[in-house]
Structures are given as structure tokens and as C-alpha cells.
């Protein structure tokens, strides 16, 4: 794991949870592998290519959408997935500049949702370069940053 990328990943993830989802997040490296109920990934390319994956435990998924919408009750499953994907998108957009100089331009693709922790595992040709584990009031979250190895499709 790259220490230099863990710090910007932590900043991006905590600020995104706190400002957009109104969920206070605390880093917890010792957090046991809490079951990931849902996950989302955002692929990026540019000077580097890879993927940001964000997974949350079961109570966190509806809390994100509920807080973002200011709703009294949890919105439907599609909106819950959309909200998690948007958080992944924002985290990704804020952390990828750390992979290159300020002039670099990255292109982010639309978020992809996955059941369980399907988005959290390294794929072929991917290397994890940062990971943060967070404790939230409602549960837990994990963010992982993968870069695609040079020459990988």
C-alpha cells in the first residue's frame, strides 16, 4: 500500500461522507473486515488508469441516500445505489489528481454499482495503491484505489 496515496484517499473519503452524506467518518485501520453490503466503482483514465471502489455496510447504504435527499424515510433501492455511486464518483474525482501533476486531466466514467463486495476486489492487472477503513455512526465503509498496470487492457 502506498502511504502517499492513502492520505489523499482518506481526506477525500472522509470529506465526501461528511459534506455530502452528513455522516461523520473516522479512520479505523484496525476495523475488522465488516461485511460489505453494497459497493460501487468508478473507472478513470488519463496519465494513470484505474478504479476507485467504495463499499459500505448494510445500515450505511440507505443512510447515505436519506441524508443526501433530506428524506424522512429511505428512498428506493435505485436511488440508494445512485447515492453510493455518486459518493464514489466524488471521492474518485478528488483523489486521482494525486496520481499526477496539477495539469493532468483525468476522465471519469459513470459509477458502476455492485451487490456485496464485488467491486472491492482487485481485478486482473490491477494493483491496490491505497485503502482506508472508516467507522461511521451507522456502520462502516471501505475505500480502495486501484491502478491498472502498464500494458494491462
Amino acid at each position, binding site marked *: 500500500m502506498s502511504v502517499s496515496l492513502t492520505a489523499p484517499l482518506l481526506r477525500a473519503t472522509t470529506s465526501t461522507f461528511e*459534506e455530502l452524506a452528513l455522516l461523520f467518518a473516522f479512520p479505523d485501520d484496525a476495523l475488522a473486515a465488516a461485511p460489505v453490503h453494497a459497493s460501487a466503482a468508478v473507472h478513470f483514465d488519463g496519465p494513470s488508469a484505474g478504479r476507485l471502489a467504495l463499499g459500505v455496510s448494510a445500515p450505511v447504504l440507505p443512510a447515505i441516500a436519506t441524508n*443526501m435527499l*433530506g428524506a424522512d424515510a429511505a428512498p428506493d433501492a435505485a*436511488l440508494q445505489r445512485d447515492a453510493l455511486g455518486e459518493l464514489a464518483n*466524488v471521492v474518485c*474525482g*478528488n483523489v486521482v489528481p494525486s496520481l499526477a501533476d496539477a*495539469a493532468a486531466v*483525468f476522465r471519469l*466514467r459513470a459509477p458502476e454499482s455492485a451487490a456485496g463486495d464485488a467491486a472491492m476486489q482487485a481485478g486482473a492487472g490491477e494493483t491496490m495503491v491505497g485503502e482506508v477503513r472508516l467507522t461511521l455512526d451507522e456502520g462502516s465503509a471501505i475505500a480502495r484505489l486501484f491502478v491498472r498496470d502498464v500494458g494491462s487492457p
Partner: protein
Amino acid sequence: MAFNVLVVDDSAVMRAMIVRTLRISGVPLGTVLEAADGAQALAAIAEHWIDLVLLDVNMPVMDGQECLTRLRADPATASLPVIVVSTEGSAARLDALRAHDVAFVHKPFAPETLRDTILRITGVSDVCVTDGAAAAGDDFDF
């Protein structure tokens, strides 16, 4: 004057969050339209009178930068007020966007940051946020 606003973002939740912030900002609102990408935004602008656009950058079909370029190339929309709401962090891309005379709100944003930018761009200064929140039936607290 009531402002007709177009919110452009591929995330339905983010559009709803922005619309919610608009409704409690105190800005007098007319019609609030939504679009999920730049192409939908251009189609909406062609059909409706729009006073303000809140525009994401990274979107499928047509991204916000292309949408903005097309807006500025059309004399009818060359001076349309635009607030870019995006995660974009590239200095080069930010410079390119700002060259189109837009305001920029970085995601993640605090609601009051978006509200203040909306008020600055619209020139609305005599607002009562509390009344606006009450009118919107919203308990969101700035």
C-alpha cells in the same frame, strides 16, 4: 424576477440535492428542470427559457465541458449564467472551464457554499433563508 433553473448531473440523487439547496437558498424560483447529460441539457435549453444552469462535468453521452463549449458558441446562450458543480481537480481543465466565464463549486460542497454561489451569480441579495426553507417545507439547516 423568478429564475428558471436547469440542473445537469448524471446522478439523480445529486440533482435532487442541488434542487433542494436551490429551494432553500431564498432565490425566487420559476421552473426547475433537470437533465442527466449535456445533450439533454442543450435540448432543454432549446425548448425552455433558462436563467441559470448548474452543470456537472463528468457525464455520459455529452460531458459538461462539451456542453459548455456549445452553449458559449451560440449567441443565444453565450452569456447564460453557468455554475459548474464538479469534482474536477485538474488545473488545466479548471482553467479551460473558467475561460468560459463560469462560477465553480467543487464537490463535495457544503450546502451554504452552493447557496452563496447561487446568490452571487443571480445577484439576489434580499433573501430570507428561513422563509425559503419554510416555504419549501424543508428542515435543512444552513
